[in-house]
């Protein structure tokens, strides 16, 4: 039966090629535009660290003065150096790491005239196991390296290839400015998007090429980058590890069970209380503990313009669908005669309805295929834009399937009403007028 309907549908579609093309084109345009934007939105709201994101938490505490304090004011987005070090040494989580963005001058083996600046991350040993950074060679440094202010570095594979011509760079010397570091690990291509662990460098910032032990970098006065939020005085000598009134350190902690999360919340409150009684904090305990997705949400990572464009694309799809409803109505009503003959010869309303829906589904499939091409083109255009999320605008398998499902479902939905109307015709009347 289905094969017969398919045959009928193909014949019918061939009969009026212009109208068929128009309908397929309309659906393709709507699907193409909306899938382009939905894909962009999909990659932008993706989980940057699947499987781990529910166990990684970002604690915030509030060391600011009483000025401007209200009961629901948010604590600063970052921690002061002292608080970060205190939380780090308390070791209340499964893993914990403090970190900050930085910039370093890489002096390649070829000499100072080839030097270049690159983004760096200063962090502590747990960064690597906690974020499951994939190593191609060696591994991260240890907690004792942190304590000893060891001059070790982990670099990205890209930089290893560029400097040493190989990804097996462990043991090589990395010269940064006037200091030498020993490479202990090379990270494979690793690009969590959004750049969740530090949003101050751009929500979709590129991964850092050089990672250094935090205290080593501070001791050698390597420059820090990213957001620095001060409510007290700037440190006169530029040493932010001594500035108790400046928040600039990101801190992540891994907590595996709800009990650990609850315990950490209690710990943050009691820490704030303790610091207040020591006179360092002025405000009553004002703490937050968000997991990765909640932290991204709190920071409004998806730009308004992308949301707006997605809305526009969906509005476009809606118009396309209304257009399809109208066209299908015309198409089905035009065939009143043919349908009446089928009805008169014994086909039930239900069968005629099914036949018309098969025809619509065929149009939907064709529209989906053409829409996919348009979406691929749209994403290519997005990738040409110099925005930081552009590189991530690729269609994956799920999106590919979603495109076809959306196209067919939308067309079937649009066909329901016209098909119902076409089934309602009274065969006798139409046959008589012929």
């Amino acid at each position: 039966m289905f094969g017969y309907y398919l045959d009928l549908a193909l014949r019918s579609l061939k009969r009026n090629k212009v109208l068929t093309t128009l309908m397929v084109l309309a659906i393709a345009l709507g699907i193409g535009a909306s899938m382009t934007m939905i894909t962009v939105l999909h990659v932008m709201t993706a989980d940057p660290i699947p499987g781990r994101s529910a166990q990684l938490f970002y604690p915030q505490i509030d060391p600011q003065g009483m000025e401007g304090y209200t009961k629901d004011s948010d604590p600063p987005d970052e921690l002061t150096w002292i608080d970060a070090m205190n939380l780090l040494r308390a070791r209340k989580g499964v893993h914990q790491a403090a970190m900050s963005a930085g910039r370093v001058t890489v002096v390649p083996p070829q000499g100072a005239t080839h030097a270049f600046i690159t983004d760096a991350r200063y962090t502590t040993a747990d960064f690597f196991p906690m974020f499951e950074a994939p190593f191609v060679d060696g591994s991260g440094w240890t907690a004792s390296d942190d304590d000893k202010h060891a001059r070790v570095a982990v670099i990205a594979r890209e930089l290893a290839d560029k400097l040493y011509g190989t990804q097996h760079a462990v043991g090589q010397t990395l010269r940064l400015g006037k200091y030498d570091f020993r490479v202990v690990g090379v990270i494979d291509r690793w690009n969590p998007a959004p750049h969740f662990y530090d949003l101050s460098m751009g929500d979709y910032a590129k991964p850092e090429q050089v990672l250094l032990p935090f205290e080593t970098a501070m001791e050698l006065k390597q420059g820090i980058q990213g957001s620095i939020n001060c409510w007290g005085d700037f440190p006169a000598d530029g040493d932010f590890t001594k500035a108790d009134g400046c928040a600039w350190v990101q801190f992540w902690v891994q907590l595996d069970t709800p009990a650990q999360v609850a315990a950490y919340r209690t710990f943050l409150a009691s820490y704030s209380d303790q610091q207040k009684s020591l006179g360092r904090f002025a405000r009553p305990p004002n703490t937050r503990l968000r997991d990765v997705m909640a932290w991204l949400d709190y920071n409004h990572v998806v730009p308004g313009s992308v949301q707006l464009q997605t809305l526009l694309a969906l509005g476009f799809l809606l118009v396309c669908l209304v257009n399809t409803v109208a066209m299908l109505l015309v198409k089905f009503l035009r065939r009143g005669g043919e349908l009446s003959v089928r009805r008169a010869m014994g086909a039930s309303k239900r069968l005629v309805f099914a036949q018309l829906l098969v025809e619509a589904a065929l149009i939907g499939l064709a529209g989906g295929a053409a829409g996919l091409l348009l979406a691929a083109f749209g994403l290519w255009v997005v990738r040409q834009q110099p925005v930081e999320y552009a590189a991530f605008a690729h269609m994956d398998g799920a999106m590919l399937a979603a495109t076809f499902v959306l196209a067919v479902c939308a067309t079937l939905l649009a066909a329901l009403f016209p098909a119902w109307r076409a089934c309602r015709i009274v065969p006798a009347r139409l046959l008589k007028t012929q």
Partner: protein
Amino acid sequence: MHPIVSALKHHKTTVVLVALEIALTCAIVTNALFLIGDRMAAMRMVTGVADNELVWVRTTGLDLGQDTKMGADTDADLAALRGVPGVESVAMANSLPLSRNFMSVSALRRPGDKKNEVNGGVVEYAGTPGLLRTLGVKLSAGRDFLPQEYVPYTPGLIVGPVSKAPPPTVVIVTRTTAEALWPGENPLGKTFWLDSDGKEPVQVVGVADHLLNPSINKYQGEDRNMILPVTKVFGGMYVLRVRPDMRGAVVRDVPGVLTRIDPARMVDAKIYTDTISDYYHGDRAMVWLLLIVTGCLLALTALGVVGLSSFWVQQRTRQIGIRRAIGATRRDILRYFQFENLLIVGAGVVLGSLGAVGLNLWLMKHYELAHMPLIWLASGAIVLWLLGQLAVLGPALRAAAVPPVVATRSV
């Protein structure tokens, strides 16, 4: 008119569908046109400097973070840059209009009176001698800075030799800044304060008509800024006034000239018009996107109208033949279909205008968009009316061509 309306009653569903499609298109297109107009206006903003004659250069030492001789080469650099062929004048600045990086400070009308300050603060431009001439900033009142008024100061500097130095005591403000400080008064000679302790007074010696901010935002608006006279700008940029046809050559030559003075550094030179173009990139992309979507939407709607009108013409061939046989002219038939289209599109546009206003209100609430002036509704309506008439013309002409003899044939 009456027969047209009663004829439409026989096709309620299709009429409603077409009107609905037009209403949706109208609502989206009107808002899209408004957004396009809004962005285009933003992109046409005048910088207030000689856009086509500027090149800027930034240089960084290799020993980042351990900078010991910050700014030591500045004088040699300036002298060398002045010698580059095509360069007319050189100065240093901390920011340029639309260069994105900026510092802002509070501006208090009375010393130590926090309640009496300009909301959102004022953007600080700092420039070395000759900056006004290099940029081409025009003063509408007052004078340029005197040589003794330049002091060692860099806005926002937190480390280094002059980070604790007080700012200059004289300033040039834009007309907008003056109006924000003292509405309707002559700002020349007046003093305001940059700190809440009353230790940093600045006196207005000149007023610039217009100088765009490095970044346009809701705090300091388009051009609420001031220019401070400084001797050196640490971490700043060299601004070069260049013969327009020599810009490319200067950008190519400058890195060599500067690394000859100190090889251990990186140099980044840019043509200023490229900086402006970069600043508006997002707006431009948005305008293109909106134009494409609007174009597709209009095309789609037009095709829908063509499809339906053709169907109606085909369906009514016999009636048209009868009308022609009993005396209707071709023109009557043409007019009939045109008027019918006018009615349907009119209904759609009325509905769509309501939708457009609703959509605008919703967008205002969620995306900080401006209120849409009603004139845009008219533009959307006109576009759709024209589109409808254009789309119906083909089918209507075909209808008018139906010969009266059709009435005598059975279809």
